[in-house]
């Protein structure tokens, strides 16, 4: 039988769940379909559309926003939007048309009728994306253990008043005097009782002093006049979201043009106990491993909360690393209390993602000890006990033992400075791919506790050798380029190199690790001491190791994949399953897939440049 409307049918049968339906059903669905074209920046649906419909993006892109204007997701070619099916009527959201968009629409009722015999596919359409959207909207309200207190707190409970104000006729110096006398970092500027602007200490530094402007100039010239405010009836969470979104540190509370108070970011930090500052402080004061462990338990929730607040993966990595660092330090202090003072100076170093400040709540422990050369053989007993105490403690706190045994409990990685120098010298001067495979983690070290100079000394010598040894860099490259990103996606599989399919995408090994490896090689070839991957890429940007463009592309790619991983893990934390790095393509929207494909391409290109440079393959 001839298939009418071949183009529509070809498109539909590549999209889940339509790919699992027989042709006859597809044709019935097509018969119920209409096509609309929506111009960028116009309304997605107008009031004339009365029936509940499902939308399938054929071309173009739209974004979904929650009631409070938080981005819920983006839909691109091949994505299904069930947001207008009546099941979701209780979810409030808006859709913004980002690109000129061609959509296929089907009435929800028609789908229900046609798919009557296909309950699985029907429930996929009804539930899958429906729940995903709902979850995103409601997540902030339920399960989250961190925000409820803020949600239930009226902002008037946290804000402070009276607010320090000044008339707009004053000059900058006078404003600064008022601010320092009252010990405030923000001043509300009035024009006869009406709020016309806000002036912060940052405005004074950035817009006046840094610009060499006279302090006798009027405050009007440097104040912010487009002020974002909130009414006193808002809850604290809403206000915090508004401030996060607008990236502002102070927000006046205004009711009917009457100023009733002001709130600053520090007010929240003070109020909201379980933020990272609070957690690290609490860990610092913990009196037992058990107490540290209890504080570390909030790490997954912290990750979830940060993702929901729209923090970047880079930022979250730093928050989580700050907590692991606090836990490690406190464990070392407790160990010293128990074992007595160290016989000779030492430094406890973190390796791998902890050193790079790129941890997620899922990270294991990697560490080592660098001890002063004054160390005598019998001193090792003390350090072995220290290592055992700390590594056991970290394991108890959720940082599981390193499967590769990169831990200070391993005598090999508990050595004096001269031995470490010898290790690095061997790795660099007489490299072998196999030895480097296990040791590359030691090129990312950060001192967490003790005498930092011990590490600095070792690193200095190492960085002097590394740029000159092409064979070493070639072996690193050989190892690093063995992890190739996938080619892309096909249907709901990940397409890997030999044409085989994987069911899931390993975000760590297929995306993050190759970029981290590339950045390390660039840094070592340039003798740069930076450890964090983004910092490394910024430092090597425009050197002979990496072009400006290459660095920018890699940073974008890293940010995209890490954000995707953070979100994926946040979803897992939210539904209470074990956190991992594996994402099934069905979880990844078509738009994200196309971004991912771009990042794979970037990684591949830069991998092959490096291979050419060191003549591999």
């Amino acid at each position, binding site marked *: 039988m001839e298939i009418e409307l071949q183009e529509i049918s070809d498109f539909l049968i590549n999209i889940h769940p339509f790919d699992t339906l027989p042709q006859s059903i597809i044709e019935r669905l097509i018969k119920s379909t209409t*096509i609309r074209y929506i111009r960028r920046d116009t309304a997605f649906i107008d009031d*004339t559309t009365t029936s509940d419909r499902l939308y399938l993006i054929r*071309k173009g892109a739209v974004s979904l926003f929650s009631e409070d204007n938080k981005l819920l997701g983006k839909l691109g070619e091949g994505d299904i939007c069930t947001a207008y099916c009546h099941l979701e009527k209780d979810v409030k959201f808006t859709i913004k048309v980002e690109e000129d968009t061609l959509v296929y629409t089907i009435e929800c009722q028609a789908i229900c009728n046609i798919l009557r015999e296909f309950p699985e596919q029907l429930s996929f359409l009804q539930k899958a994306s429906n729940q995903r959207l709902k979850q995103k909207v409601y997540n902030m309200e339920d399960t989250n253990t961190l925000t409820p207190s803020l949600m239930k707190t009226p902002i008037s409970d946290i804000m402070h008043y009276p607010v320090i104000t000044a008339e707009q006729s004053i000059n900058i110096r006078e404003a600064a005097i008022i601010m320092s006398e009252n010990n405030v970092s923000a001043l509300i500027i009035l024009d006869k009782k009406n709020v016309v602007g806000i002036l912060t200490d940052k405005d004074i530094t950035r817009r006046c002093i840094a610009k060499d402007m006279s302090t006798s100039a009027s405050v009007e010239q440097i104040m912010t006049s487009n002020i974002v405010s909130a009414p006193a009836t808002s809850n604290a969470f809403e206000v915090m979201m508004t401030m996060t979104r607008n990236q502002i540190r102070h927000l006046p509370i205004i009711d009917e043009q009457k100023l009733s108070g002001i709130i600053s970011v520090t007010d929240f930090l003070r109020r909201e106990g379980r933020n990272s500052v609070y957690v690290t402080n609490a860990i610092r004061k913990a009196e037992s491993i058990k107490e540290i462990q209890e504080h570390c338990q909030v790490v997954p929730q912290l990750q979830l909360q940060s993702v929901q607040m729209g923090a970047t993966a880079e930022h979250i990595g730093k928050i989580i690393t700050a907590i692991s660092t606090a836990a490690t330090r406190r464990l070392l202090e407790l160990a010293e209390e128990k074992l007595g003072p160290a016989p000779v100076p030492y430094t406890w170093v973190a390796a791998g993602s902890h050193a790079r400040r790129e941890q997620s709540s899922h990270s294991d422990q990697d560490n080592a000890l660098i001890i002063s050369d004054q160390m005598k053989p019998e001193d090792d007993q003390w350090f072995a006990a220290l290592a055992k105490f700390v590594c056991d403690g970290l394991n108890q706190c959720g940082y599981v033992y390193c499967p590769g045994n990169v831990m200070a409990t391993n005598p090999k990685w508990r050595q004096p400075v001269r031995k470490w120098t010898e290790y690095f010298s061997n790795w660099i001067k007489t490299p072998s791919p196999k030895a480097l495979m296990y040791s590359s983690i030691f090129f990312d070290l950060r001192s967490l506790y003790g005498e930092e100079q011990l590490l600095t000394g070792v690193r200095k010598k190492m960085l002097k050798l590394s740029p000159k040894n092409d064979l070493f860099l070639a072996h690193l490259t050989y190892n690093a380029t063995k992890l190739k990103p996938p080619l892309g996606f096909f249907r709901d599989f990940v397409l890997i190199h030999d044409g085989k399919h994987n069911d899931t995408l390993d975000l760590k090994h297929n995306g993050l690790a190759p970029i981290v490896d590339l950045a390390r090689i660039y840094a070592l070839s340039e003798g740069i001491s930076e450890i964090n991957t983004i910092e490394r890429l910024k430092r090597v940007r425009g050197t002979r190791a990496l072009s400006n463009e290459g660095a920018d592309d890699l940073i974008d790619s890293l940010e995209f994949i890490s954000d995707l991983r953070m979100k994926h893990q946040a979803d897992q934390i939210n539904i209470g399953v074990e956190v991992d790095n594996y994402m099934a393509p069905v979880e990844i929207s078509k738009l994200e897939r196309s971004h991912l494909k771009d990042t794979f391409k970037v990684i591949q290109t830069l991998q092959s440049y490096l291979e050419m440079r060191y003549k591999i393959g």
Partner: protein
Amino acid sequence: MLNYWFGYEAKRKRLLAKAPPGPLKDFLSVPFPDPKIPLNKAPILAMDFETTGLSAKTDQILSVGHISIESFEIMLSSAYHQVICTEGELKEEGVIIHQITDDTKSQGEKVEDVIEQLLYAMAGKAVLVHFSPIEKNFLQYTCKKLYGMAPIFPIIDTLMIARKRLDQRTSLYSPNDLRLFNLRESHKLPRYKAHNALSDALATAELFLAEIEYKKLKNSPPLKSVLS
């Protein structure tokens, strides 16, 4: 334009009076849509023919595809495609383009049945075509043969709409830019297989929606503003 249009409606009435009973008379008995109604209220039929050659006099309509647009929505339920069992053998160079073989067309329907169905679908609608002379000439010539009289019908031509838009710009364009495929590319519309009458009718319908949206018309303009 307005006078021209009234001439159209008047001509329909004149033809109706002379038309022999049958499909053509039925078609002519339905008034054309009021040129003053907003475009989004106008019933539109997007149409395309594949033909055995380029001359309406010596060649024949080989297949017909059409699809209707209501309130700026393309109704896939209305999609229609039919191959006609033409007289004689097909020319090889044509078969390469439209990919309808002699075997396929021999199973097609008789031309009078297909034209009857087409006139029924066209009645009361504005007909949307990309580059209208072909469809217009072939349909008029075929009707003349079948009913002894050629109909008239209001036409919207996406090529003319696009040409108007491009003429308003200062930059030059090539005639090639006005081809259906290239105009769709310029609007970033998906690629469809060309030279199937229904695919081309659908492609024209989508292009029409993009073109009128492109003009950023806030309130729907009257139908007459897009009539050729």
